[in-house]
Each structure stands twice: as C-alpha cells, then as structure tokens.
C-alpha cells in the first residue's frame, strides 16, 4: 500500500481487496463483543482536519480511530485559527509539529489532500476533497456490495444523479472498475462532467432502461449547495426523471440493492419508501464505514513509519 490514501487510483486490485478483507475480519472480530476496542494504534495520533461540514464521515473516522485506541484530535475550520486567516499549509505544519501520525482531511478545494501530503510526514487520508474524490466512501460502498451480493466481479452498478459534482461517484467509478464491477452512470447531460467518455463506465440518460439490468443502484445526493446554475429545470422534473420511487424499484432484479452515500433528500432523488425498504443498504453503509475506515487506518498507520 502507498503511504497516503488520496484517491481511489492509489489502490490497485490487491490493495483494495486487502482493505475489504481486513475490514471483514475486523467486523468479525468485534461482532458481539462487549469491549469494542483494539489496542493496535495505541500511542498514535490521528487528526481529523475538517474544512467542510460533515456528520457521518467525521464521526465514522473518529470512531474508527478510537476503536483502534489511537488518540483523536478533531479540528473543524469553524472556531479555529482558520477563521483568523491561517493557511492550510500553516495549519498542516502546526499539526506536524504536534506529532500527528495520520491526518484525515476534508476540504472544499479539490486536490487539497495532495498538497497536504507533500507537507506532512504522517499518512494523509482523503475524506472528501471538493468535487474530486472520496476514496473511503468508495471502499465502504464496495464492501457493502460484496457483503450483500457476495462478489464484485461482474456486478452491474448504476450510479444515478449529480455525477458532475460528486466525489463519491468519481471514487466509486474508479474503485469499482479496479475491482471488476461494471459501472453505468445515469444523469441529465448537464450533470455529467466533461470527459466522462474517458471514464471506465457506460453513460446513459434513461433510468428506466437501465434499472432492469442493475444489481446495484447507487443514488447520489442532489447537492443543493453546489446548484449554482440551471442544471435542471425544477426539482420536480429531476425527481420524476431521475428519482428512485417504489415503481422504479419494482423494475429492479429480485436481489438488487439500493445504496445512497447520505445525507439523503427524501422525496428528491430517493423516495422515503425506497430508502426504508429491505433493498436499501443505507444504514448498513454507515456501519460498514467504521469497519472499512478501521482497516484503512490500520493498514496505513499500524506498521512502521516509512
């Protein structure tokens, strides 16, 4: 494994499989235990550096580090020296001086974790950078698919929605392709990035045509905070053409699953009855996130510092 996890492309097939296997073993080892804690990272310090709001990712990383007995420092841009104008580099050097072994970073600027990785000695884990990548989300999604369907090779995954702004989609396309799944992207043409043709994925515009041939449907959040142009005429029209409701869900093959990285806009990209159905893995994804992130932290920080 590389020292940092900055994007899904940092993982080749063997590395990605190692992370998923490790996560599975950790989940098995902790299942049903009263003491859900392992001493593996005792004495290591993990800094959660969050420049963007996040609930589940930050808590998930915090829990993962704590379950491995690492010391966790949470840093959010609000209420820190960032609001006094401190640059990312100075913040990074401050953390470096305090001896952080691992830095988990979320930033609104694509590429911020890459810059950070060149400034600090510890391992950097990208927890979402702008519209670029979110590799641990892709890992936990792959873990969830493998857990539910028993395999990844040849699994048909359809990713629906705002691909343009979605770091989740970008990381998933690359990771799932690495692991042998077949990915199809479905979105309005305005919400597909330039150059999507070169991605290792099929592209379609008609959700109803793709659903019967999908083992997994991954709904993306319509990112209100990034909807600064007229990407689609109205929320209702988006919902009608690209939202997953019970009628559409019925068109899926029998064992197909419905995923969503959260937070959901119920009634927009996903109907409440779909989100709460047995096909939905949304809550499972959150639980799997902790095991997957424990695996990542163990593999990056457990050994000797290079």
């Amino acid at each position, binding site marked *: 494994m590389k020292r940092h996890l900055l994007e899904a492309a940092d993982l080749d097939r063997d590395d990605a499989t*190692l992370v998923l*296997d*490790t996560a599975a*073993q*950790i989940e*098995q*080892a902790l299942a*049903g*235990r*009263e*003491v859900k*804690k*392992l*001493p*593996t990272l005792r004495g290591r310090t993990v800094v959660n550096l969050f420049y963007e709001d996040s609930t589940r990712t930050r808590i998930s990383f915090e829990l993962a580090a704590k379950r*491995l007995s690492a010391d966790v420092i949470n840093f959010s841009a609000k209420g820190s020296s960032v609001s006094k104008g401190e640059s990312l580099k100075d913040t990074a050097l401050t953390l470096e001086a305090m001896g952080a072994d691992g830095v988990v970073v979320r930033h609104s600027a694509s590429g911020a974790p890459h810059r950070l990785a060149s400034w600090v000695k510890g391992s950097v884990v990208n927890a979402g950078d702008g519209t670029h990548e979110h590799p641990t989300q892709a890992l936990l999604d792959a873990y969830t698919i493998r857990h539910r369907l028993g395999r990844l090779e040849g699994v048909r995954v359809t990713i629906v929605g705002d691909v343009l702004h979605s770091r989740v989609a970008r990381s998933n396309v690359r990771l799932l392709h690495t692991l042998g799944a077949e990915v199809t992207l479905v979105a309005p043409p305005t919400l597909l990035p330039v150059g999507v043709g070169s991605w290792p994925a099929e592209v379609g515009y008609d959700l109803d045509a793709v659903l019967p041939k999908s083992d997994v449907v991954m709904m993306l959040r319509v990112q209100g905070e990034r909807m600064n142009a007229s990407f689609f005429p109205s929320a209702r029209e988006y919902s009608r053409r690209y939202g997953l409701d019970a009628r559409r869900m019925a068109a899926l093959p029998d064992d197909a699953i419905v995923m969503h990285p959260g937070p959901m806009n119920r009634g927009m990209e996903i109907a409440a009855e779909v989100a709460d159905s047995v096909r939905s893995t949304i809550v499972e994804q959150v639980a799997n996130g902790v095991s997957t992130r424990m695996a990542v932290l*163990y*593999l990056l920080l*457990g*050994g*000797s*510092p290079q």
Partner: protein
Amino acid sequence: MARTPQPALLSAADVARVVDRIAHQLIERAATAADGLPQLVLVGIPTRGAPLARRLAARIEAFSGVSVDVGTVDITLYRDDLRLRGVRALESTVLPDGGIDDRLVVLVDDVLFSGRSVRAALDALRDLGRPQAVQLAVLVDRGHRELPIRADYVGKNVPTSRSQQVRVHLAEIDGTDEVLVEEGAR
C-alpha cells in the same frame, strides 16, 4: 542465506502421536473439573494453531465421545511488533456460541518461542470475555522465552539456537505434516 536441509524433527506419524497425547492429557485434566469436558474451549492462534485446535477437538471426541468447542483468535491487532515488522493481513476470529465466559480456554499454537504471541492472545482474550482459566498447548517449545510464559501441554521440547528456525507444516495448510529445524534466521 543458504539453508541447510535437515531431517525432519517430527514426521507426520510423530505429529499424529503428539496430537493424540495432548488430547489424552486434555481429557485427563479437564475431566477433573467440576462440570467435566463440555466447558473446555480450544482456541487456535492462526495460522497453524487453528487446524491444530480442530485436530485436538476431533481426537478428544474420538477418545472420550465428548464434543469440544473450537474457536480461533487472530492476534495481529494485538501484536507489539507491528511497528517493527509492518502490518499484515488479518485472519479470522471465531468464538463458539456462548463465548468464553467462565470456561476453561486452552490456547493452541504451533511453536512457542518468545511468548509474545501468547501475550497478545491473552490480551485478545481479555477483550473477548472472562474465562475461568486459560491454559496453553503447543506442538513445539523451542525455548528463548522473553516473557514469563510457559505451556501447560507441550508436544516436543526442542533446544534451538536463536539463529535457527522452526518450521511447522500441517496438511490443512501446507499439504504435509512435519516439523523442520533450519539454519539461518529469516
């Protein structure tokens, strides 16, 4: 470094005999406990402790007719040498239904050397429950302990030098049963 081939320390027949003997010892010792055999749990330390634990359970059942619970505990996440030797893939941890609380746990491993694996396994057990007692069974004790740990059941005591390596091969993993001593540290 070139390794000098040596005749096997234990042949397949020796391994089978040793497993049988430890099985008998376990029956004797555990049978003196108030509730008899069923409270015994054999917990193998992966990789090769796991098949050894299963073999012991099979032999105990063959000799005494009592079926004994078997589990495995992966100790990787409890090791104290991760920083020195780097991370490695994990193996499975499986405990019998009902766990290990108030039971007699016998840890099973292939080679007892520094004692650090056993210490890690004891730490892991502490997080998994509270056994009534913990004992240790090993196929080979090669000495050079670095911790105050000893085995309760030993297949064979082998005086070795630190530069030697003891290799245990088991049919379930390596296709054949034998124990070899090789020159040359790894």
